[in-house]
């Protein structure tokens, strides 16, 4: 033991033979402080300046409430769509071999790779009245672009990879013998799926839909082009934050932003807790 202990040595609980502790930790902490911690603290500080009554005044404003309703409702529907089709896509990608499978697998990541403003104008081009899809449904009296349904479409597009990629590894781990056993014992295909397969996939479905919902809540670029952005009807929360910022109403912008942020973080923590429980139950059961 050296007689003089530097603060760094004290920080290093288990003596490690490796060099560079001070340098790498210093760089990391500086970066995280300037880029992540300080900006978040800024939002917290702004909110604490606001006071409860002002905060409630912003949040109970009709326009804020409408924006939250529009955002949460559309995100919920988009998540439902992604949960269902994500499950089918993941299943097909893992279980079946067919021409174009690896292309399909690669395509799933496209929404992550495509910048959101590019996705935004592309979706309008598709779903507006003279677009490839919009022109097909216009005669039926349906309109997707510049309506609430457009928001759902945009959110579905940007968050579909979450659902597929969270469910895929769990299908890979399934044991086909168990399904075969259920079959042999006389279970129907549907019964097998519900009682054997679905419970094992539930942690993935939960994570996938959860992440998809959180991403949809915060999506901005892809949505604003197709949404129409009419206050009270097709205005999402992110856009309302942006509008309040343009009006230099920083307190109102911060109140809405803080609420959205808190909602996302609480959801992510809940997903984490629920996922741990599900895994524990699955392991205990088998």
């Amino acid at each position, binding site marked *: 033991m050296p007689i003089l202990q530097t603060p760094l040595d004290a920080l290093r609980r288990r003596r490690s033979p490796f060099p560079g502790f001070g340098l790498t*930790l210093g760089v990391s902490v500086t970066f995280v402080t300037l*880029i992540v911690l300080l900006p*978040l603290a800024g939002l917290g500080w702004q909110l604490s300046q606001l006071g409860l009554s002002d905060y409630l005044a912003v949040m109970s404003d009709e326009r804020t409430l409408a924006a939250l309703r529009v955002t949460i409702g559309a995100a919920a529907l988009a998540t439902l769509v992604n949960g269902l089709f994500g499950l089918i896509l993941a299943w097909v990608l893992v279980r079946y071999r067919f021409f174009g499978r690896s292309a399909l697998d690669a395509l799933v990541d496209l929404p*992550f*790779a495509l*910048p959101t403003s590019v996705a935004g104008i592309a979706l309008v081009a598709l779903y507006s009245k003279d677009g490839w899809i919009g022109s097909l449904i216009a005669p039926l009296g349906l309109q997707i672009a510049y309506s609430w349904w457009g928001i759902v479409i945009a959110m579905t597009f940007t968050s*579909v990879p979450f659902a597929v990629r969270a469910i895929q590894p769990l299908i890979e781990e399934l044991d086909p013998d168990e399904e075969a056993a259920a079959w042999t014992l006389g279970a129907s295909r549907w019964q097998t799926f519900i009682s054997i397969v679905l419970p094992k996939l539930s942690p993935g479905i939960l994570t996938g839909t959860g992440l998809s919902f959180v991403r949809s809540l915060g999506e*901005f670029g892809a949505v604003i082009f197709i949404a129409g952005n009419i206050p009270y009807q097709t205005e999402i929360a992110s856009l309302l934050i942006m509008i309040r910022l343009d009006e230099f109403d920083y307190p109102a912008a911060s109140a809405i932003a803080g609420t959205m942020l808190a909602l996302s973080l609480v959801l992510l923590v809940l997903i984490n807790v629920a996922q741990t429980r599900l895994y524990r139950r699955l392991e205990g059961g088998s």
Partner: protein
Amino acid sequence: MSARPLLIAIAILFALVVIVMPVAVIFARAFAEGFGVWLAAVSEPETRSAIMLTIVTALIVVPINIVFGLCAAWAIARFRFPGRRVLLVLIELPFAISPIVAGLCFLLVYGAYGPVGGALQPYGIQLMFNLAGIVLVSLFVTCPFVVREVLPVLSVAGEDEERAALTLGASGWQMFRFVTFPNITWPLVYGAILATARAIGEFGAVSVVSGAIRGQTMTLPLQIELLYNDYNTTGAFAAATVLAFLALITLVLRGLIALVHPVRGAAT
């Protein structure tokens, strides 16, 4: 009857309508009036300067992200210290924060009315509504990419070889260069590609802090919005093809790297 053909048909149809058609329509619209019109649109001065700004941003952001990512992964994988888990959570946090909220946070601290921005203002230093602001928020949105690819690999590999190198008298730098680095090359490249794609494509966070000065602080994703709102749809789709093409290249590179080096860890 087997469910197989039905499920495959549903999956392919869903992927075609939801994922492929939006990308196809970009190219169809951009080239609708021919290659000459497309070329003229992408070489317009404003679009050209947006492309330049986007490249400059990525060239600043990605190297910083790589250095930070390597440092953080090294510190977290090789040492136990108080606050280690907190550091990990903070690094992952930007994935959970929506772009507009992120942009707002930066404005509140680094803007002229914020504590840091206000303190720097007397010295004539402005951090928001210019390149500095764009770089700062891009660092935020790309923060987790390199760490989350490198860390899982670094945690399970190389410790013994590194110890051997040190015992045999290698300096810290030699150990990193000849022992550590070869182990993490592919995850590092992979993370850097993802960070580059994100830095080039970020829209929401950048639009809060860019100041939107035509020809000066418009990145390519912002320029697309500007052109679109100007009813210059051909220009907007032409600019969009550049980004869509880069997105497709990103996917191809990911596929190639997955062939060379199967990447462990999350898909994001």
